[in-house]
């Protein structure tokens, strides 16, 4: 990158978002304090500044929210689909109107670059509501029988990596199908869900249809264990997903899980190399690598390994790490001190196990939680960094010699969420994509999302799909 053409800071204005000093739980159409008065603070990961104080929901609050959702379920599910559709269309439009505000808010609370919240998260959030709005009055044509019924009250627990987008993935199909919801956002990123409550208010959504409970893991555990819910939808770690699966065993609750991954990004020697480099970068450094479907394992054909590594390192040197609100920032802050510690621990293990670590020269801010984009070469299948989900900007590079070896290594994982294939040969794409045991395969691209495109994993990456016609199944009694 040129020192003679250094971009001046281009910060997005914080003035578009007005964060209150404290927020309550959103239950039955109103904000209220937690029954036991507990609160916790939410912090901006890039500055460690306290953004707001948020109510911490306990068992009593879970009871109240589930009861509110239950009361709302009858009338909501009895509404003609066309009316439910109109509420969802309203929500989609209001999100579009308020997208800059919500993008800045998300960047503040999560630490991800404004470029991503502005260009990826928010457009997809609005698109998700818009897409599902259209389903609400067409469910009888969705292939689940002539008059598919909703399940009832859905308890939904979402992660911190795409707070508002994961909310949209959960709430939009649930409401379209006629369910009501109690949603718990992640402990470290509660704000956009609370702003979404305000969007529901503006849309005139009937009270109790959407309830937002902020809190920590104990709140989520209480929600999924609650007798009054009919459906559990969870996105998060595989460890927690397994706990939830045990919790709902023997009950009538339906369950869908969107869990971890260790996506293989396979680059063949005939790949479109410049685009492959972009795809690798997008695959693992998008959202600081805190993406369940990240292409965290790069499988490179040995014959192009050196050339590709050189190109990749050259490209990494142009990544801009820093203030997430700067419109030119490519890599923002790690979401929490806890997550940073986990990344650091796994990276240390990579070095200890003999892999070769490399990062471009980059200055990290003093305050906040940061991790430089990192590449590990000389990684083998046996290394922890090739098997465990790091959930950070860390790429593990392995090599292969033949297509069969690439597929075997790619599939050699407890996970099966995503994979990438880079080759100019069409028949090879189809053959390899066919053999990969992963729910989403990106051929000559990576990390693309769309509300019409079903997303979800094989194996321990979870079950059920979100998005598209397939995603409706998770919220219908079929």
């Amino acid at each position, binding site marked *: 990158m040129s020192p003679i*053409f250094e971009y*001046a800071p281009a910060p997005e204005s914080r003035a578009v978002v007005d964060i209150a000093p404290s927020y309550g739980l959103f239950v039955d159409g109103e904000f209220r304090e937690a029954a036991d008065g507990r609160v916790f603070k939410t912090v901006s990961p890039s500055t460690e500044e306290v953004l707001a104080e948020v109510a911490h929901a306990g068992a009593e609050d879970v009871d109240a929210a589930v009861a509110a959702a239950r009361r709302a379920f009858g009338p909501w599910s009895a509404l003609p689909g066309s009316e439910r559709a109109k509420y969802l269309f309203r929500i989609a439009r209001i999100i579009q109107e308020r997208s800059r505000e919500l993008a800045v808010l998300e960047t503040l609370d999560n630490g991800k670059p404004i470029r991503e919240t502005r260009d990826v998260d928010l457009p997809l959030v609005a698109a998700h509501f818009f897409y599902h709005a259209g389903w609400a009055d067409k469910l009888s044509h969705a292939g689940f029988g002539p008059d598919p019924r909703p399940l009832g009250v859905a308890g939904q627990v979402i992660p911190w990596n795409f707070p508002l987008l994961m909310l949209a993935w959960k709430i939009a199909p649930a409401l379209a199908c006629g369910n009501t919801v109690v949603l718990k956002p992640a402990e470290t990123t509660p704000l956009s869900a609370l702003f979404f409550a305000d969007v529901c208010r503006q849309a005139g959504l009937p009270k109790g249809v959407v309830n937002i409970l902020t809190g920590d893991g104990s709140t989520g555990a209480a929600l999924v264990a609650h007798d009054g819910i009919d459906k559990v939808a969870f996105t998060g770690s595989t460890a927690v997903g397994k706990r939830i699966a045990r919790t709902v065993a023997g009950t009538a609750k339906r369950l869908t899980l969107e869990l971890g991954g260790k996506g293989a990004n396979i680059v063949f020697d005939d*790949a*479109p190399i*410049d685009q492959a480099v972009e795809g690798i970068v997008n695959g693992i450094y998008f959202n600081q690598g805190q993406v369940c479907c990240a292409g965290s394992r790069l499988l490179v054909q040995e014959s192009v390994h050196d050339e590709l590594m050189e190109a990749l390192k050259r490209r990494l040197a142009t990544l801009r790490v820093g203030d997430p609100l700067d419109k*030119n920032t490519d890599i923002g802050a790690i979401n929490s001190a806890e997550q940073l510690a986990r990344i650091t621990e796994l990276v240390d293990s990579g070095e200890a196990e003999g892999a070769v670590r490399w990062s471009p020269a980059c200055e990290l801010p003093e305050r906040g939680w940061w991790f430089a984009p990192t590449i590990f070469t000389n990684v083998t299948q046996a290394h922890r960094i090739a098997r465990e989900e790091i959930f950070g900007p860390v790429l593990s590079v392995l090599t292969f010699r033949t297509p069969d070896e690439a597929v075997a290594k790619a599939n050699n994982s407890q996970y099966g969420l995503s994979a990438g294939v880079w080759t100019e040969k069409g028949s090879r794409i189809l053959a390899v994509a066919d053999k990969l045991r992963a729910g989403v395969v990106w051929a000559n691209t990576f990390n693309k999302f769309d509300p019409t495109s079903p997303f979800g994993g094989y194996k321990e990456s979870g079950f059920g799909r979100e998005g598209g016609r397939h995603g409706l199944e998770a919220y219908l009694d079929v």
Partner: protein
Amino acid sequence: MFADATASDTALRRFLHGLPGVDAVGLEARAATLGTRSIKTTAKAFAIDLAISMIDLTTLEGADTPGKVRALCAKGVVPDPTDRTAPKVAAICVYPDMVATARQALDAAGGRDVHVASVATAFPAGRAALSVKLADTRDAVAAGADEIDMVIDRGAFLSGRYMQVFEEIRAVKEACAREDGEDAHLKVIFENGELATYDNVRRASWLAMLAGADFIKTSTGKVAVNATPANTLVMLEAVRDFRAAGGRQVGVKPAGGIRTAKDAIKYLVLVNETLGDDWLHPDWFRFGASSLLGDLLMQRQKLTTGRYSGPDYVTVD
């Protein structure tokens, strides 16, 4: 260095078809992403002046007259009469018969350091016998052209006669020899809009560089699709890879359709992030443009005065 690649028709074809492919969607997405870079304050002022100094200020019309060319030259030397700190453009680009006029006008206006570039080789279609193209080139060089913008034979390229295209570029390059022993710099125009695919743009880039091009240039400005950020990006990658593979440093010139300062800055961002410092200089990057200068000057005035400017405050050609 690349002698093997050009040893025979077959070898050349094999080499060009062995270059990595270009995925169109990924390429365009990358170009679009770089287009979202937000350039502010000092960086913007720097970029605007750099862009002005990289312009090949162009008039290539059947209606060109000495008067029109002299006006253009005057503007190229003193882009903003109200602000003498505005840099000169890099070159004035005209048809061969206007080269002498342009040289005289530039010299008279104090622009000895502003180059005269001339299109040649039966521009823009290139449909003439090689002997005519070479005569066209020698004529322009003899009249004082510092730079020759030649067009390749797209028909030959598209029908796979790569060696013919290669030999033609070589011959034109030889025809660029001046009496003083220097060569006029050779810019090779592909007409990307007619090559149709990015794979072809990449192959044409390598072909031209192997044949001796000093610059590679996107287009004539005379067809529907001219320079785009995406097809320029392919060419930037090609010059980067050519040098990395042991070849010379080759310049890049997008031309046609770049009309606003905002557009120009996007191209500079492409250069900056793909090639870096080494190419951020008029010796290595040019804009082929006519109306671009006006918008750059208006933006420059805005930065200087804090007020938005208007077309009445920049000179017309």
